[in-house]
Every structure is written in C-alpha cells, then in structure tokens.
C-alpha cells in the first residue's frame, strides 16, 4: 500500500460496522432504513450514533423497505444528502422505487449487503438481489473486503452527487462473509472524510428555492418519456469517467488505488477467471497455488458493474485464450449468469475473442472453496489445449446432483 500524508487508523471490525462508520463520518442529512438480515447491523450501528448524538442525521425508522426508498426519494428531492441500506427481499420490495430514484436523478447512496432472493427463503450470500436490479439506472459497485466496503461507501457518495452524474449508487458487499466477519482495515479521519465528500447543494430541490417551485415526477407521455430515458442512458454511460476520477482522488487521500476492475496475474495468463466480491480472495489463493504448478492463470475482479466497462473488459480479457466467468447469481432461462452474458457480449466485436464459459456458484451461501476455482481453471485449460470445445450451457458449480 502506498503511503500518504493522511493519518489513518487501523481498526478491527466487521464490514457492516465499517459501512456504518463511513455513514457516521459522512453524517448525512437523512437516513431512512428498515432492518433486514444481513444488513441490519449497519442500521443498528448507525442508530447508536444517532442515539448518542455523534451524528445529527434525521433518521427515519420506516415501516418497510418500500417506504425506506420512498422517503429517501422525498428527502433527496427535498435537497438533502441521503443514505440507506438493504438486502435481498428488502431490495426486492424497493424495486418499484429504484427506477424512480434514478429517473429523478437523485444521488441516494445505498449499501446493499448481498443476500439470496427467496425462494426458498435464505439469508446467506449470493448476488441475485442486486443483479436483479441491474437495469434500474443505478451505479453498482462491488467490494471484496471490509476495507473496500468502507472505501466504496465514501466514494459512492461523491460519485452520486457529482453534478455530471446525479445518479443513485448501490455499494455491495457479501452478506455474512464480508458483512459479519471481523476484518482488519484502515479508516480515514472524520475530518478527511468530511472534506472529501464536501458540502452538498443540489441545483434543483423542493426546499431550497420554493419561490421558483419545481415539480418532481411529472407524467410523461410518448412524446417525452423516451427522451428522459435517453438522458438516463447518457448520464450513466458518462459516469464511468467520474467514477474513475473520484476513485483516483480517493487514492490520493487514502493511498488505496482501485479501478473499474482489478487484474491479478493476468498479464501473461493463458486462462482467466472473472469474479465479483469476496470470492476474489479464494481465487487469488488458488491462482498462486496453480501458478506454482505452472498453470498460467489470472483473475479479473470486477468492481464497477454499472456502468458496465465493456471496452476496458474486452481489452483486458482479449489477451487470454479462455475466460471462465463466475456468477454468484443465476439468470434462469438465460445463457448463464448476468456477468457472463454481458462479458461475452462485450467481447463479441473484439478482434481477439477468447473462448468463454459461464459458471454459476455459491447460490444461497453455498461454500466456494479453492476446489471449485480449480475446476474452472482446469476446464479452461482443456479448452485451450483443444481437448474440449467451449461449453454452450452454463455450469452449476458445487451443486448436489
């Protein structure tokens, strides 16, 4: 890690506590939230900050996640800096509101602690909740560790509120794996976070200039609806640059440099795996072990899923001969998981097209050990050697037959 002049403190806490700490340091105007496992400890921890007067946030204990996002939309349109947090069914209940938040261009930041969607009901990690919301016009950031979850929370706010973005951001980390395990990481000074996120003053709001009243959420018929959706597309496509600008600014402050994705031993790799979130740690361990045996394997860990960095991914993965994309969510009835299908599409017009295979793994918190990653790598090696043709059908890893 690069050293910076900034004073930082090493802490040992869970990913959720780290997220609550980031919220405390941001001290948003309004938080409207509802408890749901495994996110609950974020809103509990934040409630402690409110109860002790450490923050002076207006904390709305809503009666459902639908109302949580509704109140966030109202508060954000009013002109406030707004944050919330949810998981799984809570995110599902918010569904209707997600696309309204982005269409109204409201910079709400939501920590989304990934948990499997019912049914059957399950409380453990997979990415089916946020992946289901991938077309809602939100920016999606994924964290591998508590450090990244903390860092992304702070960056998410700055990205969301940037005048050229003005979009809501979901900041994901893995339920229980990252949310509840105690991790060692660095945290910034309150003053540095405050300075980094700065003051928030929206251009349009319900409250700041009532003499020039604004109508939020009007009714748009075929003559106007499409253009508004185009504006959303332009905004989220353009946000990629701002995501990286904020990421680079954050690196100057913290010494921690992130990208749209992270490449691990990919430079000279023949085969590559693509992962999101906490699986990257297991993947690094497995890759090191396989490299020691002479297998030229690397990894690409995606951090920014929306806006989808298609050109950058095509460039990075075009160098290898075969790619295995590991999705921690399935898109039943589709070719495979959402990351797989999108990466495959991103590479279609690329001059160098590696062979590709899609894998679904770890649904509902099914453990993912090095053996599963080895299986993927060995599959890919067989494809590269010409011993097997690339599989058309998705492979479900670690499922009992």
């Amino acid at each position, binding site marked *: 890690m690069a050293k910076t002049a900034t004073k930082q403190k090493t802490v040992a806490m869970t990913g959720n506590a780290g997220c609550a700490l980031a919220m405390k340091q941001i001290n948003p105007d309004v938080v409207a939230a509802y408890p749901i496992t495994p996110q609950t400890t974020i809103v509990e921890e934040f409630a402690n900050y409110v109860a002790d007067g450490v923050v002076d946030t*207006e904390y*709305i204990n809503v009666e459902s996640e639908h*109302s949580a996002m509704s109140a966030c939309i*109202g*508060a954000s349109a009013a002109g406030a800096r707004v944050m919330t947090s949810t998981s799984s069914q809570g995110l599902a209940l918010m569904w209707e509101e997600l696309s309204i938040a982005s269409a109204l261009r409201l910079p709400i930041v939501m920590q989304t602690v990934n948990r499997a969607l019912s049914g059957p009901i399950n409380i453990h990690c997979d990415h089916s909740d946020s992946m289901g919301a991938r077309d809602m016009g939100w920016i999606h950031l994924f964290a591998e560790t508590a450090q990244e979850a903390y860092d992304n929370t702070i960056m998410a706010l700055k990205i969301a509120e940037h005048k050229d973005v003005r979009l809501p951001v979901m900041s994901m980390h893995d339920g229980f794996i990252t949310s509840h395990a105690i991790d060692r990481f660095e945290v910034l000074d309150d003053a540095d976070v405050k300075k980094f996120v700065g003051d928030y003053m929206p251009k349009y709001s319900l409250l700041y200039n009532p003499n020039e009243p604004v109508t939020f959420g009007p*009714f748009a018929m075929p003559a106007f609806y499409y253009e508004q959706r185009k504006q959303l597309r332009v905004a989220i496509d353009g946000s990629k640059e701002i995501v990286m600008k904020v990421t680079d600014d954050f690196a100057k402050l913290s010494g921690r440099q992130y990208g749209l994705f992270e490449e691990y031993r990919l430079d000279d790799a023949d085969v590559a795996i693509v992962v999101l979130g906490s699986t990257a740690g297991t993947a690094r361990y497995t890759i090191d072990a396989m490299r020691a045996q002479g297998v030229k394997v690397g990894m690409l860990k995606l951090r920014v899923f929306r806006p989808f960095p298609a050109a950058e991914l095509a460039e990075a993965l075009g160098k290898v001969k075969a790619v295995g994309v590991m999705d921690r969510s399935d898109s039943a009835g589709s070719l495979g998981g959402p990351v797989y299908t999108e990466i495959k599409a991103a590479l279609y017009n690329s001059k160098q097209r590696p062979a590709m295979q899609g894998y679904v793994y770890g649904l509902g918190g099914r453990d993912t050990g090095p053996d599963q990653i080895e299986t993927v790598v060995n599959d890919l090696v067989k494809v590269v050697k010409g011993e097997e043709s690339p599989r058309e059908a998705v492979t479900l890893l670690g499922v009992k037959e």
Partner: protein
Amino acid sequence: MATIKELSRKPELLTGGHRLCAGCGASIAVRQVLLGANDQVIAGSATGCLEVSTTPYPFSAWKIPFIHNAFENSAATMSGVEAAYQALVRRGKIEKKMKFVAFGGDGGTYDIGLQSLSGAMERGHNMVYVCYDNGAYMNTGIQRSGSTPFGAATTTSPAGKVRPGKPQQRKDLTQIMAAHDIPYVAQASISHWKDLVKKAEKAFSVEGPAFLNVMAPCPRGWRTPNEMTIEISKISVQTGFWPLYEVEDGEWKLNFKPKELKPITDFLKPQGRFRHLFKPGNEHLLEIAQAEIDKNWSRLKKRCGVE
C-alpha cells in the same frame, strides 16, 4: 378563520388549465385545503387523476414545490421531505417556515397506500395527509376500492345477473386514522367549504401529523351530471353517508348535526352507479344500505357525545 373575501384574495396555488374533468371534486378539494395554509406549502400526490392531470410534462399546475413518486407512497415520500426539512433547518441551511401536505385518492389511501400512511402518521411527521375520496379507482376507469359504497356498480364490481354491484360495505378510514391517536383527524366535504378550510387550517397548524378525509365526487364514476358535484356532496352529508366530524387531541366532535338524516336513497338515486338498486326486487339492498348508515350514525353520535 379568514372571511370569504380574504380567501378570494389568496393566491391560487393550484392554477387553472389542468386537465381534470369538469365537475371533478379533486381539484376543488385541493384548492380548499390549500386555502387553509398560511405558510409556504410543499405538496405531493399519489399517482392518480390529480397527479396525472396536473403534471402532464412539460407542464405543471402547481405553483408550489410538488413531488409525485408512485401510487402507494405519497405519505412515505412526504415524510422524507419533512425529515429533510427538519435536518436542513437544524443545520442552518433553511430558515423559512414550511408546511407539508400529501394528497391521495381513496385507492392510494384506503388500499394500496394504507401501510405507508399508517407508518408516516405513527412516526409523528409534521405533515398533513389529505385523502380526496371519490369511492373508486377513477383514474384507471372506475374500479372498486375499499372506499366504494355497498351496492355501487364499478368496472370490477359490476351489477350483473347474480351480483348487485359491490357486495361489501366500505372501510371507515377516518376512524382508522383516529385510532392512530394523532393530533388532528377530520372528515370534511367540498360542499361545506367553510368547514373544510377551517379543518385544513387546523391540520396545518398542529404540531405533528394530521389527516383529512375529504368527500370529492367523480361525475364519471358516479354517473352524475358535472354540475351536480357540490350538490351531491351536500347530500352525502345530509344523508349521513359522509358525516362531518373531527377528532382533536382525542376529542370527538360532530360538526354537522341535522335533526333528522335524509334517507340514503336521496344520495343513491341521482347516481347512475346505483341505478340497479332501484329495480323491483332489490328493495332489500336499499334496506341494507340504510341500515348501515343508521348503525354508523348512531355509533358516531355516541362517540361524539351527541344524543
């Protein structure tokens, strides 16, 4: 309360030129409610006729800040606006005194928005919620709601060969809101404008949540002539279908006490949605309708301490 002369000089906060139907009770309700506000008002509305007809992009009939979010969450949305106001005042970013009002039709309030409303009221936000009650989902083409009266023909409770319109009685939302023990709850009608404006004034002036349920007929759904809106609202009060009352800090008060109620048929007969009830053989349905009114009226009088 201001005199009618003073009220007439107040600026119109919902301007003309919106696309609500001639004779629509909703816009009348909104104008009367807004006449009761003496500070800057921030308004919101649930999805419905009011929202669709007042905000056809790129136009807006609202001369005050306005937000529409979705159908079931006008109360939750406004609770967020109010919370933002509290935070920004506390942080010295806003000084102006402001009031908050959320509107919703009966579909968006009695039915799909009940949870959102109940939550916002329980949390004690300093806001007014106004239900403009026309007794059905009028915006989508007259479907039955929890507020639709017994026997009314709607497009989802039509009067057919074996079913005579809506088989159930309506839900009493005003009493449900009174049970939330909030500072102010009232039932009003656009026909009794003075009573309504006064109630709106009280609702805006209390600290904490207030709820108004306003009779606001829909000529399309009720199958009444456009020019009959105010008259039929008046009859709704006179027949006891829509009693005017308020619950102020737990004190129940009946605001209109006729010596004798007019028969419910006076309310039902002019409306096309009840036409089938007057066919021979359906006399028992009219009796059921009257019995329900009598039961509710006597209960309400008891609660209000009226003999």
